[in-house]
């Protein structure tokens, strides 16, 4: 029987009417497969036994896309469901985690079916709060996604940013009517350099956490398309180590004013997860290895700063298209 193996409270309800906890294991898994993504998240909050059971069973869900975008002082996650199979849950949910005015304070806003819900959380950095919510989702996702995006915003030139209101949430309608916008949004001035260094630290921590979470899965996370925009090449490899994907877009988030060595992604074709790659597009990162390493990939878009004579012959023989830009940086 379902939880009765682990929780002996079931002894008391032997002569009572059947409850959900009396369901056999296989029936319970079948029920959870039909519950849907959002209801599963709510079910995890009901009790410890259910939470453990869901984390153990990892029910199927209709989740198709996850898009994570880290900007300066805020993180936006957009999750998209399969519309065809489940009209009730169809559509998108957007969750935004914003840095609060005080330390370790976070403002969360959720948009679902064009309704917005906002609330404050006073016990955690916004990235920690995000992982608290999304770690189980990343750990429990069993079915293959169509798209997964983890993107980090480039450095900013601006010295100011607007902070979220800490007071009671004002409706969007009331904001539209009010001409004095600053009443609700306070603006802080922090030197761009400081903002950027904070952003880089948060981004590096976030990518490390992603690597740890995805790496601790027993089965690799699967997605058809993977879109990464990160600062370091090691962050790309950290994610690729534990994700299976058919297509990769890898971009570098720009770090202005920073004198760093040119980062290359030469080891990309050797990645185990990219053995059956159908599409590869690399932007920002350099590539120095031979073009023969990429011959198995049907669609390829990489940037080369220089190209050897051998590679040109191979490319011509293989009927690749070479686009040469005026900057004398050939793009293949």
């Amino acid at each position, binding site marked *: 029987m379902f939880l009765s193996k682990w929780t002996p409270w079931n002894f008391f309800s032997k002569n009572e009417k059947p409850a959900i906890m009396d369901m056999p294991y296989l*029936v319970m898994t*079948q029920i959870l497969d039909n519950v849907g993504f959002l209801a599963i998240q709510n079910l995890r909050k009901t009790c410890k036994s259910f939470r453990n059971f869901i984390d153990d069973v990892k029910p199927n869900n209709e989740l198709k896309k996850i898009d994570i975008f880290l900007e300066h002082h805020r993180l936006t996650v957009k999750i998209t469901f399969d519309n065809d199979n489940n009209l009730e849950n169809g559509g998108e949910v957007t969750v935004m985690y914003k840095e609060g005015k005080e330390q370790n304070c976070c403002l969360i806003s959720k948009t679902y079916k064009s309704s917005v819900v906002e609330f404050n959380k006073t016990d955690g950095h916004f990235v920690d709060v995000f992982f608290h919510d999304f770690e189980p989702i990343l750990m429990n996702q069993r079915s293959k996604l169509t798209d997964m995006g983890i993107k980090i915003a480039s450095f900013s030139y601006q010295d100011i940013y607007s902070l979220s209101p800490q007071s009671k949430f004002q409706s969007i309608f009331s904001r539209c009517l009010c001409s004095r916008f600053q009443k609700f949004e306070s603006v802080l001035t922090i030197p761009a350099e400081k903002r950027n260094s904070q952003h880089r630290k948060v981004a590096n921590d976030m990518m490390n956490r992603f690597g740890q979470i995805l790496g601790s899965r027993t089965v690799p996370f699967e997605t058809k398309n993977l879109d990464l925009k990160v600062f370091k090449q090691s962050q790309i490899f950290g994610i690729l180590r534990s994700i299976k994907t058919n297509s990769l877009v890898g971009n570098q988030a720009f770090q202005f004013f920073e004198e760093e060595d040119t980062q290359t992604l030469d080891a990309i074709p050797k990645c185990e997860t990219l053995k059956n790659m159908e599409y590869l597009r690399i932007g920002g990162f350099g590539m120095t290895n031979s073009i023969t390493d990429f011959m198995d990939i049907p669609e390829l878009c990489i940037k080369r700063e220089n190209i050897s004579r051998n590679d040109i012959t191979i490319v011509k023989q293989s009927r690749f298209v070479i686009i040469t830009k005026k900057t004398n940086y050939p793009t293949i």
Partner: protein
Amino acid sequence: MSSTEQGTSSAAPAEPTTAPESAAAPEVPESFYYVHGKDKVVHKVSAGALQHSALIHGMISNLGYTEEQAKANPFPFENIDGDILQMVVDWCNQHKGKPTPPEDTNLPKQKEKLFDLVLAVNYLEIKELLTYCCKQVAMMVKGKSPEEIREIWMIPTDAEDEAAEKEAKKRAGKEAAGETAAAAGDAK
């Protein structure tokens, strides 16, 4: 559950030695079998309808009952309420030899009845009906908050769960102590 298992197991091994395997099936166009639940009300069901249940189908294909034998030995399902068994029988008759539709809207709306039906259908191994029932149970909590889900599915809170667990442990401890005392008494 144990009484049903005993009932079915006592009926099952008695017949195969006397009757050859599914001898009556090709001669008689439609054979009937009899089942009864906790309320002892006997339901007459055709072999075609019973094919939905893997459990009963497995039993009757090995038994090879004649009409009289089937009438004299109804299958007892003591762990299934009479009204629930009636529901299952009606569903099997309704979908006899027909392709099952993608959705079934005639399932009970009350959760107690639905949970009873799920347990009965799972026991009788009626795959299609179990799929509908599971979907129906899942639909109950769609779009609901954790508190509402807890109420609808009668899920105990962590505190209630822990209290019950402690009480069960205490009870188990007492029982174990009683058993050891009894064993010591026997040894003396």
